[in-house]
């Protein structure tokens, strides 16, 4: 028991700060970039650009995050673009996430009736005003619950960045295992720390779903 409180928990909690940092930073990238992509995809009307965004989204969504991280971290280093592990983790998960959030925002936009933009244009608003003042705020509300679900998934997915040596929870767990061999104790503590972080988040997501309507299929 002493060992648990004196060594294991402090180690895992140090890792947890990196887990939280990576989660928040990549969430920020994903939520912003995904929104820009969704705006362009929904309103630009340029075929070539739309195709490029579709390709970007499908490429990122149909390949494991681990694979993307290896390309970023090991692959780019081999041709002279070395990125250290935590930035690589944040960029990798952020880009993958932008593909997910792009789809979330788009289904938010498509949930709005066509009549809204027609009415807003008819009373003399410019297309930009319609997008910013009428459509986006509503699409964002629809997108909130699935965005929350995505954040929950992201928190768990940060565990894969241990594979590119970013010192988060699973990384500390593995390195403590090599020095102490307390595998059962260490890995179950790690699982419980994740649970302690994700339970409040899951509770928040459920509240969002109750308030803004259920999950859409993204």
């Amino acid at each position, binding site marked *: 028991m002493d060992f648990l409180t004196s060594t294991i928990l402090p180690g895992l909690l140090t890792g947890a700060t990196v887990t939280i940092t990576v989660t928040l930073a990549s969430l920020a990238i994903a939520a912003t970039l995904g929104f820009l992509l969704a705006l362009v995809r929904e309103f630009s009307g340029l075929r070539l650009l739309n195709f490029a965004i579709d390709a970007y989204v*499908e*490429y990122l*969504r*149909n*390949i*494991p*995050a*681990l*694979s*993307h991280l*290896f*390309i970023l971290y*090991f*692959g*780019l*280093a*081999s*041709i002279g673009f070395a990125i250290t592990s935590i930035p690589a983790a944040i960029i990798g998960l952020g880009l993958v996430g932008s593909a997910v959030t792009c789809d979330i925002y788009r289904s938010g936009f498509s949930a709005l009736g066509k009549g809204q933009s027609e009415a807003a244009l008819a009373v003399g608003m410019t297309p930009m005003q319609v997008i910013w003042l009428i459509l986006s705020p509503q699409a964002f509300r629809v997108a909130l619950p699935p965005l929350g679900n995505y954040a*929950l998934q992201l928190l*768990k*997915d*940060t*565990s*894969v960045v*241990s*594979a590119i040596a970013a010192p988060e929870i*699973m990384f500390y*767990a*593995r390195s403590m*295992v090599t020095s102490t061999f*307390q*595998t*059962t*104790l*260490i*890995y*179950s503590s*790690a*699982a419980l720390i*994740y*649970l302690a972080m*994700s*339970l409040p988040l*899951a509770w928040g997501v459920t509240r969002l779903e109750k308030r803004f309507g259920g999950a859409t*299929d993204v």
Partner: protein
Amino acid sequence: MFEFLSVFVQYADQWGPRLAEAAVVSARISLLGFALAAVVGLVLALMQDTSSALLRGVAKGYVIFFRGVPVLAILFLIYFGLPGIGVVFDAEPAAIVGLGLAFAAQMAEVYRAGLSAIPKGQWEAARSVGFLPGQVLFLIILPQVARIVAAPVIVTFVALLKDSSLASLITVNELVLEGRALATEYFLPLHIYIWVGVMYFIIAFPLSMLAKLLSRRARLGTR
């Protein structure tokens, strides 16, 4: 650019067969893991529909736990952690069990969404015209549920396939681990990891498109 691409052609006969073999391992653990998830998930979904508070609580606790813990942590717990209390798994079965148990929670949610979309009145109506409970379930309810859940089931499978890459971290010789072996042998990590990514894409992309098609169709059907 041409130089970059020509490397793929140059090594195709050396990397191709090895990555194809590893893709078979990825597909195998994904399919078996998914089969486990589909069965356990159905049990969990039906448990949450029963009148027993105990069964409901257990199923709910299961879903909350596995929804809150990363798949990687579950795999490590099974493969490295359980031997500490005397339960030893080989790497591949550990991966299948870990992926299966983790995604069972997700499958349970998928089934529940499907089941709750069928009005309770259908049960009562079918029972009152003389169908047996088993007949109602298999002839009336499940065919309709299948139509609703087809798309999310495929989406869940694709997610599981992608997470099967985590099995490389518990030494299962699937695509990513074989990629790492090749990367240390040939010192061309960028090319090799792109190839590995493309292998996943070849399996996952058509499935994702199919899921999109099915969900569009299911939505049209309900109107």
